[in-house]
């Protein structure tokens, strides 16, 4: 997938074109291509994509739970917070309270923390792990990119919770508040430096040899 930056000048021209012509038409294309000949190729491609977009079948429905965040929204919020943090570090924007930013980096729903004490115990039992490893999963102390997909699926089944929600939870930043009940101001950008790899977490959580073998076989 391309990761090119948006050409602000071109983006503005596209905005103008689309705002002025809700339904694309021949005059629109002709006018803009003549007005901005340096973008004639891009404008033509944009017009083609716009036509395809207009012609696409419509879907309209009311959102029953507009405030319920989806995994994609959680991921985007995390991206937004990182971008905001970076901008603050560079002095591009006025400094906000770091702890406010950090607090909201943990916004992804945590389906394990939502379990009752008995529910948490049952979850660990079904997953066949001890409470130490279960707590590491709850507190996002294991780097999600080192976890086998089959293991994440099993975690979702053992909670039980939707796989997307569990994946979003595991991918979110480590939950400091749940882990250590300590509040502190970070000196740097929030990262995954405190996370263990899946393999290390399995080896360092006091599991039995049989449990370790099963987990590492995922």
């Amino acid at each position, binding site marked *: 997938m391309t990761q090119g930056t948006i050409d602000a000048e071109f983006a503005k021209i596209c905005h103008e074109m689309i705002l002025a012509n809700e339904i694309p038409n021949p005059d629109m294309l*002709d006018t803009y291509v003549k007005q901005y000949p340096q973008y004639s190729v891009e404008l033509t491609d944009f017009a083609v994509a716009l036509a395809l977009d207009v012609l696409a079948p419509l879907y309209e429905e009311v959102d029953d739970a507009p405030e319920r965040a989806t995994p994609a929204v959680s991921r985007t919020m995390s991206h937004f917070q990182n971008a905001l943090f970076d901008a603050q570090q560079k002095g591009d924007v006025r400094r906000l309270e770091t702890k406010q930013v950090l607090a909201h980096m943990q916004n992804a729903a945590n389906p394990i923390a939502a379990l009752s004490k008995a529910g948490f115990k049952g979850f660990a039992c079904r997953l066949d792990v001890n409470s130490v490893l279960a707590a590491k999963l709850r507190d996002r102390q294991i780097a999600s990119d080192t976890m086998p997909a089959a293991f994440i699926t099993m975690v979702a089944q053992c909670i039980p919770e939707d796989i997307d929600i569990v994946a979003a939870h595991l991918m979110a930043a480590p939950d400091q508040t749940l882990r250590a009940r300590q509040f502190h101001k970070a000196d740097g950008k929030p990262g995954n430096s405190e996370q263990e790899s899946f393999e290390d977490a399995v080896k360092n959580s006091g599991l039995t040899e049989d449990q370790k073998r099963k987990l590492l076989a995922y």
Partner: protein
Amino acid sequence: MAQNLVKLREKGSKKGEPYQRPALVEADIDVAIGLDDDKIFARLSIGDPKADGYLRSECLVHLIRCALKGENAERYNRLLPVLLKRCERNLISKISARIVPYAEGLRDVILQDFATLFVEDLGDPDEGILDMFECKFNLAFSSLRIDRFRQEMNHFGRYQEPSNSRSASRGDDEADKLARFTDEDWLILPQEAGVLKHELHDAILGLPPDVRKALILVKFYHLKEESSDPDETTAAKLCGCTGRTIRNRLKEARKQLAPFKEYLKK
């Protein structure tokens, strides 16, 4: 109560004309800006755009900009996810895994592009990057989405062939036969929103990029294939090729879309 910390640029557009919010949006903002957090947050649960108290997306953009500027983290962290979810629903309807194999990743990229605009806007308020989103949100977001989609089309060219395409099942010979209808028989693409059947839309997306471009320019935008007038904008000119090449591409499009000709007839 929030302060109205954001004003639209006076010379917002490329032509130096000011952007103007529609009256309904202005009225929405006037009310919303005076509400405290609890009242605003309560209105976030209204998901029906026709219901009283529904916060228009344009209004949400304004409130988020004000919250960022006023350093009200709680407010922008509650408002932005609601707006992003609306955007995501729009993206799901427009960029489906049926036609783009990595649809979810592409949707994420567009959502993140959009969220980043708020950070850029905060860093450079004079640029007014988000002004257009306060005027006509859906169109402005469409522009962002389509521009990214255009980049992807250029990068990958052709999307996956519809797996159940009828041309595949009928074979080339039959497609050739079906292609032998005259130019008058097959339609100029309608300029109405949302009118194409899934199968046809998928088939057009599955065309080779040059063929698809020629088809849209001639059959949707009604451009001439070529012209003796050097000042006239034609499909050949925009595609950087001859009129004959355009006609060959149209012929190819006709052949590939022949199984869907009933959707194309007037």
